[in-house]
């Protein structure tokens, strides 16, 4: 097995051996469940739009909570020295951590499939938007997680890591809200940088390469920066 997978397996076990995974999954399910069933019972509307719409905001709090200690803890407890002196490349450490956080996020998302099943039992489920929505969630979640891993590589303090990850994702989220205040020429660029705009596109069931490129770029750049930041310890 590749070292990255060994690391992610260890990390997943750590999540589920501690309360972190259960708290995150429970809180996430309760929040999204509340939103979904309010819409269902109060507005008598059986669709998943409200659920998908809240995700960019919800991820902003939830994902940094998952990722904050991934590398920060290794640095503060000194285990990074042990890990990195094993025959492993720095990027494998970063990717391993990323995959572990993705696994936890996907577990939480997997539980919400129950909403889709509920909708389907009450009426026709619009398949395109539902499948697109989940694909978009995984991609957007990947971007948030990568940003979180990057933030965690910057510091040995988990709280700082959380705040940095939150600030960066909030900044990217704000881009989508800023466009109307900007000159025409800037609008499309800034809109492109917005982290949730692409999710909305994919959520419509239309998969455009530009949206995929955006998420894969955010993931790639963040993990690259995390790797470089990990490597920089050698020069300190």
């Amino acid at each position, binding site marked *: *097995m590749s070292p990255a997978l060994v690391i992610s397996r260890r990390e997943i076990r*750590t999540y589920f051996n501690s309360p972190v995974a259960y708290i995150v999954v429970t809180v996430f399910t309760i929040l999204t469940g509340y939103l979904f069933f309010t819409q269902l019972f109060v507005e008598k509307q059986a669709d998943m739009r409200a659920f998908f719409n809240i995700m960019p905001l919800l991820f902003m709090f939830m994902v940094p909570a998952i990722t904050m200690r991934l590398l920060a803890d290794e640095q503060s407890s000194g285990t990074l020295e*042990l890990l990195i*002196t094993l025959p492993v490349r720095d990027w494998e450490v970063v990717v391993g951590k990323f995959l572990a956080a993705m696994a936890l996020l996907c577990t939480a998302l997997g539980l919400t499939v129950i909403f889709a099943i509920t909708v389907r039992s009450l009426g026709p489920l619009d398949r395109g938007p539902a499948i697109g929505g989940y694909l978009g969630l995984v991609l957007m979640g990947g971007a948030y997680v990568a940003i979180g891993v990057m933030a965690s590589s910057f510091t040995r303090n988990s709280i700082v890591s959380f705040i940095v990850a939150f600030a960066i994702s909030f900044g990217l989220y704000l881009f989508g809200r800023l466009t109307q205040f900007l000159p025409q020429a800037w609008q499309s660029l800034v809109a492109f940088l917005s982290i949730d705009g692409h999710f909305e596109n994919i959520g419509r069931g239309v998969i455009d390469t530009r949206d995929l490129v955006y998420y894969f770029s955010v993931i790639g750049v963040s993990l690259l920066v995390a790797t470089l930041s990990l490597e920089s*310890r*050698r020069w300190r």
Partner: protein
Amino acid sequence: MSDVMIEVDGLTKDYGATRAVDQVSFAVKKGEVLGFLGPNGAGKSTTMKMLTCFLSPTAGRAQVAGYDVFDQSLEVRRHIGYLPEDTPIYRDMTVLEFLSFAADMRGMDSATSPGRIKEIGVRCGLGDVAGKLVGELSKGYRQRVGLAQAMLHDPDILILDEPTSGLDPNQIVEIRSLIKEIGREKTVILSTHILPEVQATCSRILIISGGKLVADGTPDTLRAREKGGRYRVVVESNGVAKEAIRDRLAALAGVARCEILAGEDGAYAFALDAAASSDLRKPIFRAAVDNRWTLLELLRESASLEDVFRNLTTGDPLAAPTAESSIEKGKS
């Protein structure tokens, strides 16, 4: 591959403006147990971190098992086992889980690794704690887990940063004999500031101070650098003042220095330092006979590594806190 397992040439590391390791060069052969000795903050750990590819050198180069620590760091890390200082280990894993994790990370064959883990666990005395969480273990056991991890893949080179810190005396003896045993076929570098440890385990010693290498040799050659030796003499005074006895002893040929040590009832103890490699036993005995002192004890101690260490790392060879007073010979 040649016999030289580790070759270090002009290794230098700066932390900001401070130079932690300064132009250190040495080579270690196969089958050597190298003791890395120095006061706290001398640069032992930093040197080890560079050898294990955790830090990159500011200048100079190092080859481990024939691979460059900078250009071929992955290969280097495959060939070494490393026990970092303070043994950082994931606290939320059990001993067995942690060792299997290390085995997987090293890409060990999953068919044979459980057997190997068991073998090394027994060797390091971990049989009773295999299912316990690392975070619940005492320091001594954690240290052993770290050692087991370092030796798991049977590496050619073991780099151990303070391997016996936190162990009780029985464990220290066990670990030392383990290191010695490994050192017969492999190469071991261990750092410590416990001098008896070096004497007990190492075939060669490097002393580092202020980031610089100040001595390199076997324990015997280093001791031989300290000329002469030290004698301990206890005589029954028979009414003579201890200062008078001291002056007599100090006046003997070949005595560099004589100190009065704390004595017992009616007996005085003295410590004599020989000037050159002269044997002082006969002159001391004669002096006792001539002066009618009753000689109760005469002991020749060769210069200890403590003296060597103190001389090299502080430049204060006369630090002897037990002496009540001392006089230097050669004034007249």
